[in-house]
């Protein structure tokens, strides 16, 4: 006989302001099997939890319903409390009276009625709960880090320094990411390469880190602690063991005029190339799309000049299968291509460039060796206009969010310009200046006050050419929306940061969620900003939303800690909410008829074949069996099984059926 306790939480006034909690508790006390029903101000508080624990002991409860907030919020809290009170944690269910009731409805009888209904369903459900024990699975103490930007580098180093193996994969020929392209960094103006390069080298030399560049994730199977990742190592056409990185091939390659990705198209690279001089690893790749040999079938100059015979034209992509226990996704961000704004004339006017292109112009290692020269004629621009929020915060463009880093790098750009071009005039069009960060506001003030950058608050409507000059047309909202026209030699667009183009595909491979902008979704916006909803997979850096360097680095270190925590255990505890095939007495043994159609329905290949044999070893029956390590508990097989031979713990047929019955009937 069930002995159920019902605990109705007021959540301060969050619930009780619209729901009559006392009435809910009173009504619940009338249900068959309910032996204890109370309401309390804060159920999740210490005294609240004590109430539950005490009632379990005093009333010998067999099940607990906590009517409070969303189970996604506090289910673990109350399950733990029940466990401490001496009740199996899975004998606790939550009725969501806050997110699904009090917060979305006005005060009134209907709202209280709904609360009562919801509590009743959980009472009927919990009566049918079964005590469950957690599943233990071993942990593979190797981490996979996807993305070799600053976040990936930081997290790899931190995990490796904790003594765990790390496999770092990077889709480009070198690690370094966007940070390696930057000139100086705000708000200190230290040289990006100078602080990044040592970290890159450390990665390459760390005994615990295996680095695969020019490599991408092919597929992922398994679950937390026990993933199997297939990595596609794209053919570099270079034998990495033989290559010494002398660079002879890159200098001799006859195809030299390929726009350099690293220099944002402002410079050129050959078909066999190292993206930048400090690349790690310092091993070139052959760009097969542009290489003459691959196009026309002859050339092979690189092969002839290579002193170590490291060129391998017929090299094939290699699939490497690795077992890993945790994954950190640090794939960074993409930049909205400015052809997105025809009104700003990008592509039409060579001197309208992006912020990242400006970084390359300002970089000592860039195509102009740090001199600010316009792409059209190499002249130093006397007048320059920076347009902040190029795409960002523009609902019409589909990017309502703030790209966060543009205010700061625009201030930096203007400042760098003023430092490099004496007597130059710089103007920044902005919507708001968002400089919340340590020394950020001071940095912007410095640009305005010391470096005399002119800030105009207003959106630019158009950029057009007139008499060889770029005319920037906008308004100054601080002057009563007065139209402004500024003549400029060069215009820099602070283009919106967006999710990487491949983000969606990767998320699907990883089975992690992503938001409407294709940024990866964290498990909880406040309390679990690093974990994803898929156990064992963390996110770090700008792949989750646009982040600057310090934030990316802290997030990366955070992710490393999450991985290290996971790896600190030899065994992992998993929720036992998995599917089970029923067993019964002979001659049936199970109601499963072994049609194995569930096998094709299971997304995790978790359904195996079990043979039931008699004592002499003769096969009686083949039935399905769920591998508890692989099953993730989606229950697709359950709804699919015609003979209802598979059930899923925590959402059994008996539980959900009676939930629905309870919802629609009086009790």
């Amino acid at each position: 006989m069930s002995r159920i306790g019902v605990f109705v939480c007021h959540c301060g006034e969050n619930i009780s302001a619209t729901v009559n909690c006392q009435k809910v508790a009173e009504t619940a006390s009338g249900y068959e099997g309910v032996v204890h029903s109370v309401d309390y101000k804060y159920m999740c508080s210490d005294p609240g939890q004590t109430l539950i624990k005490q009632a379990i002991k005093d009333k010998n409860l067999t099940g607990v319903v906590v009517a409070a907030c969303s189970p996604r919020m506090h289910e673990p809290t109350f399950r733990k409390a029940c466990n401490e009170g001496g009740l199996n944690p899975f004998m606790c269910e939550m009725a969501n009276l806050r997110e699904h009731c009090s917060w979305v409805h006005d005060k009134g009888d209907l709202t209280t009625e709904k609360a009562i209904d919801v509590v009743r369903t959980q009472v009927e459900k919990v009566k049918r709960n079964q005590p469950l024990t957690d599943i233990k699975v071993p942990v593979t103490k190797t981490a996979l880090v996807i993305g070799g930007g600053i976040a990936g580098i930081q997290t790899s180093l931190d995990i490796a320094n904790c003594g765990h193996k790390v496999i770092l994969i990077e889709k480009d020929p070198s690690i370094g990411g966007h940070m390696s392209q930057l000139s100086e960094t705000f708000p200190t103006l230290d040289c990006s390469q100078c602080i990044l390069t040592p970290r890159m080298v450390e990665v390459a030399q760390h005994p615990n880190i295996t680095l695969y560049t020019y490599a991408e994730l092919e597929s992922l199977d398994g679950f937390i602690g026990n993933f199997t990742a297939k990595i596609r190592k794209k053919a570099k056409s270079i034998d990495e063991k033989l290559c010494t990185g002398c660079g002879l091939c890159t200098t001799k390659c006859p195809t030299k005029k390929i726009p350099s990705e690293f220099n944002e198209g402002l410079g050129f690279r050959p078909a066999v190339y190292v993206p930048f001089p400090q690349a790690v690893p310092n091993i070139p790749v052959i760009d097969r799309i542009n290489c003459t040999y691959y196009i026309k079938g002859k050339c092979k100059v690189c092969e002839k000049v290579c002193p170590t015979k490291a060129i391998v034209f017929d090299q094939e992509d290699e699939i490497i299968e690795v077992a890993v226990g945790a994954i950190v996704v640090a794939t960074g961000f993409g930049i909205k291509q400015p052809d997105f704004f025809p009104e700003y004339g990008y592509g039409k006017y060579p001197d309208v460039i992006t912020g990242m292109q400006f970084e390359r112009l300002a970089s000592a290692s860039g195509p102009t060796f740090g001199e600010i020269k316009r792409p059209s004629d190499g002249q130093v621009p006397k007048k320059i206009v920076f347009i902040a929020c190029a795409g960002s915060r523009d609902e019409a463009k589909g990017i309502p969010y703030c790209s966060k880093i543009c205010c700061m790098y625009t201030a930096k750009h203007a400042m760098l310009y003023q430092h490099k071009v004496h007597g130059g005039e710089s103007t920044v069009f902005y919507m708001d200046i968002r400089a919340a960060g340590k020394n950020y506001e001071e940095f912007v003030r410095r640009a305005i006050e010391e470096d005399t950058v002119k800030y105009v608050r207003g959106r630019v409507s158009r950029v057009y050419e007139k008499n060889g000059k770029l005319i920037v047309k906008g308004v100054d909202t601080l002057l009563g929306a007065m139209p402004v026209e500024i003549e400029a030699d060069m215009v820099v667009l602070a283009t919106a940061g967006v999710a990487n183009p491949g983000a969606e595909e990767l998320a699907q491979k990883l089975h992690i969620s992503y938001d409407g902008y294709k940024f990866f979704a964290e498990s909880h916006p406040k309390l679990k900003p690093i974990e994803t909803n898929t156990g064992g997979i963390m996110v770090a850096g700008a792949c989750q939303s646009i982040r600057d360097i310090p934030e990316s680095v802290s997030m990366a270190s955070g992710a490393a800690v999450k991985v290290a925590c996971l790896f600190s255990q030899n065994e992992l505890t998993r929720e036992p909410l998995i599917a089970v095939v029923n067993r019964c007495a002979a001659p049936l043994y199970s109601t499963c008829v072994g049609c194995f159609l569930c096998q094709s329905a299971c997304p995790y290949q978790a359904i195996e074949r079990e043979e039931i044999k008699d004592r002499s070893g003769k096969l009686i029956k083949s039935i399905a069996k769920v591998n508890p390590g692989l099953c993730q508990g989606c229950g697709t097989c359950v709804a699919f099984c015609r003979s209802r031979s598979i059930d899923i713990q925590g959402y059994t047929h008996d539980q959900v059926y009676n939930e629905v019955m309870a919802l629609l009937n009086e009790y």
Partner: protein
Amino acid sequence: MSEFEPKVVAFVCNWCTYAGADLTGTSRIKYATNVRIVRFPCTGRIDYMLLMKSFAEGVDGIIVSGCHPNDCHYTSGNFQARRRWIVFRNLCDFMGIDIRRIQFSWVSAAEGAKWADVVNTTVTTIRELGPYTDYKKVANYFEKEVSHG
């Protein structure tokens, strides 16, 4: 007589729509009180017989909602579910079960506002359709003697 208050049950997956409905709450977006949510791990787990039983027990409308295609927490549960829904819905229609009373939707964890909208429009539709008396008549089989023939 008081105004008809539709009874609506929503069968939702834990990872997208349930979380989306949580977000509706966190965002304090109001919607009709008529809906009651039943949580499942995945739309793939949602048994069509539960929908049938709900009608039998007197609901006037049903919402079934989960993750958008490609966004399933379990990769493909929603794809499996979608196939089942296509056939289920067709068979319902063929048997004369009023499919206007079953609203299928994709509501992600980020679509709190959409959830409120799905509930409100469904409740409005059901209010217009009125109580599902056809099904209720059949479900209350003892009001009429079934004894003979």
